[in-house]
């Protein structure tokens, strides 16, 4: 009997609380709870990072040989001195392709690792170790005159670290300018279960979360996913032999969650676990090192930028305004 009474009291309390909420009491608390629930239950956004800029060097570790083939109209083999025409250079998986732009306006394309070369639609020649080609506009016999577009497909390292000029006169080839845009993809579910598809919600819509310039002399080293694995880039770089400026104009994008950037004045301290790939973090954790700066999308940018979340805010605010109005009206 007592228990029944207690249960009855509780029911009355709950119904009073609901009435209070309906009247507008505890309104801010309820709103706060809904927002906290929303924030907790939103999964981390899937992101896309894009970069456009001018760089004097790019290294590409090939992750898909078919998409890394370089087509060049003409180039000179740096080791044999031969002038080659109508070149198809195919690096193998895990080889590294370098595009180096000299300050005199030349472009060097080299492959560290196995590759194959086809010249003038002739037989394919395999290179086991490396190949080095140069396109020098000042080379009267073997210089290109038309702009060349080359692929940037694979794991990229953009820009070289700064060092003093060497005894041989070698200077660092740097990232001259770069602008990074971080895009988020709209949330699709709340609590990983409740779908936000249909009606006012948009599936797979991109929103710009942040945009910033990268200082000249920086080195963009890793694009990583949440499991700290390398993520490939997709893009292209243009070489214009008619321009006097050194460097190629690059445009590339990746579905990475984080981007590691070594600034010319890098942060010193503990190695950032988040920004280093799993295979490297162990080898460098034993020694202090220069930690990269890490760029990724943060919760604030997601909450402010996600179009689906914005619709939920509008829905909440409309509901809250309605409740306040009804409560105010009933009290009157």
């Amino acid at each position: 009997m007592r228990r029944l009474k207690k249960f009855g009291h509780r029911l009355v309390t709950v119904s009073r609380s609901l009435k209070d909420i309906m009247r507008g009491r505890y309104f801010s608390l309820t709103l706060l709870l809904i927002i906290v629930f929303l924030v907790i239950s939103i999964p981390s956004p899937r992101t896309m990072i894009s970069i456009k800029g001018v760089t004097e060097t790019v290294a590409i570790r090939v992750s898909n040989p078919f998409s890394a083939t370089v087509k060049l109209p003409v180039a000179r083999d740096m080791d044999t001195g031969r002038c080659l025409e109508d070149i198809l250079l195919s690096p193998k998986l895990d080889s590294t392709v370098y595009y180096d732009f000299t300050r005199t306006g030349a472009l060097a394309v080299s492959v560290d690792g196995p590759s194959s070369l086809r010249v003038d639609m002739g037989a394919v020649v395999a290179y086991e170790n490396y190949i080095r080609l140069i396109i020098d506009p000042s080379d009267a016999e073997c210089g290109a005159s038309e702009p060349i577009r080359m692929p940037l497909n694979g794991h990229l390292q953009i820009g070289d670290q700064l060092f003093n000029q060497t005894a041989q006169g070698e200077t660092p080839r740097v990232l001259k300018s770069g602008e990074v845009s971080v895009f988020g993809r709209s949330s699709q579910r709340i609590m990983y279960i409740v779908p936000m598809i249909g009606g006012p919600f948009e599936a797979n819509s991109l929103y710009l979360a942040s945009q910033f310039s990268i200082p000249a002399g920086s080195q963009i080293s890793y694009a990583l996913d949440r499991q700290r694995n390398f993520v490939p880039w997709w893009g292209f770089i243009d070489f214009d032999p008619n321009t006097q400026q050194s460097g190629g104009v690059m445009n590339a994008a990746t579905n990475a969650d984080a981007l590691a950037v070594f600034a010319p004045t890098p942060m010193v301290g503990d190695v950032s676990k988040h920004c280093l790939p799993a295979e490297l973090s162990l080898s460098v954790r034993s020694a202090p090192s220069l930690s990269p700066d890490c760029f990724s999308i943060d919760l604030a940018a997601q909450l402010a930028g996600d179009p689906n979340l914005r619709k939920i805010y509008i829905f909440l605010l409309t509901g809250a305004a309605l409740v306040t109005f009804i409560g105010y009206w009933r009290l009157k």
Partner: protein
Amino acid sequence: MQQIKNKRLTILAALLYLFYVMLTAVKPKAEEIYGQIQEQFTDYSNVSGTTLVGLQLGAPEGKVNLSKISGVVGFSNTYKKACYIASTQDGLYTAEGIVNLPPQNGIFPIVPEGAWRHLSKVKAYSQLNFAGFLMSSESCFADSDTEFAPISFGAESSILTISVNSRRALRVHASITDTDGDTVSASCLQAPPIRSVAFDTICTLDLVKVQAPQRGRLKIEIIPRIGPPLNEFYHVTLFPQG
């Protein structure tokens, strides 16, 4: 009377201080590589374009303990002084100084005037991330006659580690030709693609394979991404001569 007493006390104090200074002053011993070594540990990296960054005798194992660092002296008959240069791979720590060499050849501890300033900070580095050498130059600039000698952390092995700054070259090859004309090649390994500012390639060579391992000529061949292949030669003292 009081003034005389004060003067006596002052003189006594001065004598005591002098005695203390004499007692505590670190005297260079005949079996030490001793000199004023400038050290700095900064929060920015010092990057040089030098190709040869370090020579280390003994397989690099464990952490760097500067109080156990020693140098191979094999050119003391010609030179009384040498230049000691060392750095960590990330370029944060650098050390340089002119040191006095003992009159005899051998492996001797390197002792700075005063004490090592960044002993504890450098202790965090593994020996593989540390490079240095002695060179027979009082200006710390090398020419074609300059001799180089390795440092050591006391490991008893005949492994020679050569730290090279290849600036991400396509290929690095190192070899040593001894006084008999025999050449032994080193195996070179490029560091993982983490930012490495002072050196990016480590070559190792077992000196047991060198027939006359006292002195040799180190050849570093680099295939850069642009330009002709680079060949650099260094005179090196490997094991101290009798």
